[in-house]
């Protein structure tokens, strides 16, 4: 079975890195993965979108997804075209409060205040990894340890000092769903 994820938001939120981390984690687990990135020349502040497809066989999905099973909505701006392609019922992680909790009524949505979670583990720059941790806790697409390893592999030498904080963000994002007293807002299911 192929699972598709679209990640949408604004350049600078960590969208491309989180998508690449998931795709690399799946690849390192010996699975098939595809990553398509779509962002403007602005880098920060412009539209940023990525799609990841993971499967156990050579993939059938196109680099421009006809439809997608799941989503991580990091910001509501620019998100409409990507979200219009979601198949109803699949999981969607919403970055509260930037994304309205009532968004995507046809999906199984999970609201995560990624900014607050990231700050709580002293990783304020790593909201993307909080959302990825939460997404993987819901979908269990890859082993959480694979995400940490992929994140570490992707960091260039001059960013290695962020590896520990990023790992905390991934774990904290997962704990939003798994841990006791989690502030997960399950908007609909």
């Amino acid at each position: 079975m192929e699972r598709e994820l679209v990640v949408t938001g604004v350049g600078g939120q960590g969208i491309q890195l989180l998508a690449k981390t998931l795709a690399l984690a799946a690849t390192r687990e010996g699975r098939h993965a595809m990553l398509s990135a779509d962002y403007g020349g602005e880098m920060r502040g412009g539209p940023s979108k990525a799609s990841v497809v993971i499967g156990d066989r050579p993939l059938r999905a196109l680099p421009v997804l006809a439809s997608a099973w799941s989503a991580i909505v990091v910001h509501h701006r620019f998100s409409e075209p990507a979200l219009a392609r979601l198949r109803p019922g699949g999981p969607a992680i919403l970055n509260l409060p930037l994304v309205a909790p009532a968004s995507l009524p046809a999906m199984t949505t999970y609201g995560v205040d990624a900014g607050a979670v990231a700050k709580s583990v002293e990783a304020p720059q790593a909201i993307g990894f909080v959302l990825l941790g939460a997404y993987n806790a819901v979908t269990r697409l890859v082993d959480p340890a694979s995400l940490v390893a992929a994140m570490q592999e992707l960091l260039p030498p001059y960013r290695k000092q962020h590896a520990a904080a990023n790992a905390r963000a991934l774990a904290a994002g997962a704990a939003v769903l798994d841990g006791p007293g989690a502030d997960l807002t399950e908007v609909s299911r």
Partner: protein
Amino acid sequence: MTLELLEGSEAIATSAIAAGCRFFAGYPMSPFTGLLENMSRQLPAAGGVCLNAESEIEGVNMTLGAAAAGARAATGSCGQGIALMQEAIAEAALNETPFVVFNMARNQQDYFQATRGGGWGDYRTITLAPKDVPEAVEHAQLAFHLADKHRAPVIFYGDPLLAQTRIGVSVRPLDFGPLPPKDWALDGTGGGTGRSRQVWTWAMGKATDPGPGPDRHWRAIAEKFAAIDAIETRSEQAHVEDAETLVVAFGSAAKFVEYVVEELRADGHRIGWFRPVTLWPFPGGALAAATAGVRRVLVFELNAGQMLDDVRIHAADRSAVRFIGGVSIAESGLAYGDLMDAPVIRDRILTACSEGGRS
């Protein structure tokens, strides 16, 4: 088989080097730049040379020089830059110097440029059009094999999706069979002996060792390309046996068409697809056979209708051919527009099918 998550440009560069490419020269131009960057990163460690040339003209002529010396050599750009390279490509076709031109194109508007020659003289360029990154990895090596086999420049026709999509692939050297020795290469071994070699478009030879001259040489070149036309066509097709409608597409567009046609088959439509893998030589015989029993032949390409000419030439009934593609460019001018999208292609196919009965 271990898969590596590689961007298309990196996968293609890695594959070309695995095929023995040891010289690369080009000038940056999106979406070709990624290939040049990856060649620049990887070639020195493989014992090769990568040069950022002053322009595309210098890049292709440096490549011609390296290839004439016997190296597996390549250049690249996108269609706009390859327009500048046409003189050198024509010379190489006529003086039989094998190298590869990677057209990491911005769209599908370079079909005529790739398949009709573009310089002067009676020649064509073998053109491979992979549909996705895994096939691009194979074609990056096949291109060098075909170039050496036929002593001719070969074009690899890529696009932004092939250049920029990251996908798990395995790159290893592929064996396409034996090749003739490069006993024509200007490797310096004949210097000072009176038997130094020449690579010359006019084939006049030397006073002490006359060549065949342009008349005989260019006749032989024309015959060589006719022979290539007869043996090197490649194509792929599915669901042709019971199809009422056949959709023809190349490159990435063919991957999208294949996806849509499989969905339409699942919905009960009698529809199939055909893909020329080599754009030149065009698989005309295979297309004629595939179209023999169909009611309509739909051509989908992201240009104003270029491959359409070849489909009309070879379809069993040219009056059955309809064009459902069109020009579609992103606002940046650097990538495909909205037409490269499965739901849009599906609508176009269904609309064409409704004009004259059920598919």
